[in-house]
């Protein structure tokens, strides 16, 4: 029964990871931007939510109504300014720029909010409550809610991409930027829209994580970004070169003294793996679930194996099925 419980918990946690990963996947798929500030922006969204709740006294769950539009606008503006100007130079420049953005955000948060961690709605019954099935399986309301939100977000994204005017333009621009220009579309504006959508999902991810766990200024890079990358990669993407780069970067990581900026190198390893392919939306969910289940099963064996188990699965997928469990395609059609 303990194993069944671990699997169920893992699947539900996977919803959270998919929520982290879908924005990352969307931005990579459309703009070829690996947003290394992805996790930090989720933390920013979490802090905005805390601020909004404190100041306006809106119910915790409704904070997203304010935070999501704020993040969407921020996404559009960041894309049209900072990220676009980096893209105009080269795709690699976007790695440097978003990495810089990540450092600035993290230190900015440390400066203004200190290193203390905070949660969102920690005293809510929804956040602390759970129901039990049988004697061993306990399901947290919050995790169930987050999973449902993740599925709803992915369904919404799929509908948006396949049916709406801007979704169609986003896919067209992802296919061929120049041909889209010849059809009268300003691809920079379309990129902005895609970033706005991605940041909206980031906002949900940040709020969800703030309720699930605690936020502190380093959560973004240490936790959210790593899990997002792992989920994207396991879920599916499609390039041998990316795998090779990832392998090389991973080799570098293991050879280096673990105290010298391991976070950074590990991040770049994941980034390198992501370059060259794009996971499908549902692959992202599957990737999140696989990662979550692996971690829970690892924790079941030994509590210290939780993260390790996740990365072992990540590596196995990379070796046996480098294109991911579900490969390619923004839309499912």
């Amino acid at each position, binding site marked *: 029964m303990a194993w069944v419980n671990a699997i169920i918990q893992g699947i539900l946690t996977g919803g959270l990871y998919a929520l982290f990963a879908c924005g990352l996947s969307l931005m990579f798929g459309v703009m070829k931007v690996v947003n290394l500030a992805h996790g930090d922006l989720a933390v920013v969204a979490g802090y905005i939510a805390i601020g909004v709740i404190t100041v306006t006294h809106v119910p915790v769950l409704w904070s997203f109504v304010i935070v999501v539009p704020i993040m969407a606008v921020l996404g559009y503006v960041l894309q049209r300014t900072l990220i676009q100007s980096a893209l105009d130079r080269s795709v690699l420049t976007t790695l440097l720029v978003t990495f810089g953005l990540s450092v600035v955000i993290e230190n900015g948060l440390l400066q203004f909010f200190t290193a203390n961690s905070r949660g969102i709605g920690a005293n809510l019954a929804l956040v602390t409550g759970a129901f039990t099935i049988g004697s061993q399986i306990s399901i947290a309301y919050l995790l169930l809610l987050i999973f449902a939100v993740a599925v709803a977000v992915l369904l919404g994204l799929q509908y948006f991409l396949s049916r709406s005017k801007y979704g169609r333009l986003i896919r067209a621009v992802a296919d061929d930027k120049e041909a889209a*220009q010849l*059809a*009268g579309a300003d691809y920079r504006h379309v990129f902005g829209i895609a970033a706005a959508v991605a940041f909206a999902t980031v906002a949900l991810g940040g709020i969800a994580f703030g309720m699930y766990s605690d936020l502190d200024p380093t959560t973004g890079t240490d936790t959210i970004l790593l899990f997002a990358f792992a989920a994207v990669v396991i879920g599916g993407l499609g390039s041998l070169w990316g795998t090779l780069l990832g392998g090389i970067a991973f080799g570098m990581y293991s050879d280096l003294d673990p105290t010298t900026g391991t976070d950074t190198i590990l991040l770049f390893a994941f980034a390198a793996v992501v370059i060259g392919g794009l996971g499908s939306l549902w692959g992202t969910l599957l990737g999140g679930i696989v990662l979550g289940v692996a971690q829970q099963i690892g924790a079941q064996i030994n509590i210290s194996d939780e993260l390790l188990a996740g990365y072992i699965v990540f590596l196995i997928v990379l070796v046996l099925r480098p294109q991911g469990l579900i490969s390619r395609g923004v839309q499912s059609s």
Partner: protein
Amino acid sequence: MSASAASGNEVRGDRAADGTPLLEVRDLVVHHGQLMALDAISLRVLPGEVYAIIGANGAGKSTLLRTIAGLHHPTSGSVLYDGKDVTGLRPERRATQGIVMVPEGRRLFGSLSVEENLKVGATYARQGPWTMERVYEMFGWMRERRNQPTAQLSGGEQQAVAIGRALVANPRVLMLDELSLGLAPVVVQRIYGMLPQILGTGLTVLLVEQDVSQALRVASHIQCLLEGRTTLEGKPSDVTADQVEAAYFGLAGTAASPAGEESEA
């Protein structure tokens, strides 16, 4: 743009007297890095005509169309459309104002269906006679296969979708870049056979073609490029086959530079 009237004297023959051009290119110089791709090219496209640019590989034909579309920035010279200077305009703004190009190699959106490709073309369309319905009428097979991904179409069918995608934008100037590339002669014939229908709606066509006989057949005016310079221009009926051959390959007796090592035919 001060020397506007003066550049007319570059155009040979009586073209300057034929009326106001819809599209005009003046002394266009374009570089690809250090390499000069176009060396002071000028042309005047009159409303309603089919203007064909011919020339061998690397003559600068596609560069010329892409510069008019706004995809390349000229080193000097200007592009005028409907009397206005559009040289500094972004490609998407030129498209929405009515200069629409069917790019070389078709460049369809691969993850989109036939209909979605047309819808993207129609998103920023001007007012005009062309609708998706009309495109479906012109290419009978297309309606039934509108939900198929474009990868499942043959080369000729893909070219038809690319033309349809441009038409639904309701261009005033339709630019066609190497329609015949990679297509069987029969298919090329069929696609060029559509041209009268397209012209019937009041469009002006500027096309680039390597297949000289095809270009001579459909064009009302031709201009031959060689290594970025104009070597011949005139009405197809006014030029002889020998003249065209000489201009195309840069043989002696033309205004072109010395023949050079033109290895590709």
